[in-house]
């Protein structure tokens, strides 16, 4: 009953923007979003590792994680939400919740510290979430070719690697186009 007559509500789709801390995720989301990026928080409960456990009773800890997101209304019936994943490692367990239902992801990389995005690449590979790698070309960073980045990150040959300026709406939108083209091509080959 609650779901009746919902046809006039727009379809909302979710893409993720991941990468190391300070790599420009919020900048990227802000560049393409039609609204000022919003921040929302989720309270996460997880079973703790139990290092302090004295009685063998599993204890639970709650953590509040905050993440930024933006919105692009592509038509009256289709809205795209872009979620920036929390950058700090200890919030990783949260990613599962965030990635549920996401069509795909952009992994932002900074060539000055490529290792910062290893974790994101690893996570999406294990989860089976399709992603593209976008190298955010910071001023003063040494320029690497996409193929050098691919080799350094040990990416599979089909994973697109592209260059971008996360501050530039056009450039950031191009990355999203690249991601959706990749998702579309992948959907053709799987059926």
């Amino acid at each position, binding site marked *: 009953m*609650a779901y009746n007559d919902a046809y006039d509500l727009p379809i909302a789709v979710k893409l993720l923007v991941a990468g190391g801390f300070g790599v420009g995720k919020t900048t990227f989301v802000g560049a393409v979003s039609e609204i000022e990026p919003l921040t929302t928080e989720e309270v996460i409960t997880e079973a703790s590792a139990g290092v302090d456990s004295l009685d063998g009773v599993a204890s639970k800890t709650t953590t509040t994680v905050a993440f930024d997101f933006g919105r692009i209304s592509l038509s009256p019936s289709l809205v*795209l939400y872009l979620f920036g994943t929390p950058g700090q490692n200890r919030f990783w367990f949260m990613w599962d919740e965030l990635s549920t239902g996401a069509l795909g992801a952009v992994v932002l990389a900074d060539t000055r510290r490529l290792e910062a995005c290893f974790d994101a690449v690893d996570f999406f590979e294990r989860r089976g979430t399709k992603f593209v790698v976008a190298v955010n070309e910071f001023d003063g960073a040494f320029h690497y070719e996409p193929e050098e980045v691919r080799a350094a990150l040990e990416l599979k040959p089909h994973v697109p690697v592209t260059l971008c300026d996360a501050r530039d709406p056009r450039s950031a939108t191009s990355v999203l186009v690249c991601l959706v083209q990749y998702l579309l091509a992948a959907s053709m080959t799987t059926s």
Partner: protein
Amino acid sequence: MTVSGDESWLDGDAGRLVRPYAVTNGRTTASLKLDLVSMVVATGNGSHSSLEPDHVQVLGMCLRPASVAEIAARLRLPAAVTKVLLSDLVDCGAVRAAAPRSETDATNRVLLERLLHGLQRRL
């Protein structure tokens, strides 16, 4: 609950005076399956007699279609709390939620094509 007209000494940084889960009577799970991008909209009817001030606030954010994440962010409520309040509103008929998307390959492909065209228009 908040007392209207008595909030001038508070600024945004003070945060909420009421613990988040107090507004949901301690409930942490919504009766309805909602995720961060579930779209909701006010129906303009339903029984409002049992609504708490927080419900009214959430309802006010649904006058146009909005996602759970947006409502949570604008009201500075944790997403889980927002989901509980929204599902109460759906239960009483004041809010309608979009049906969960079917995830077949074919519908997914049509969706991806629409997404692609929409994005390309912005270049």
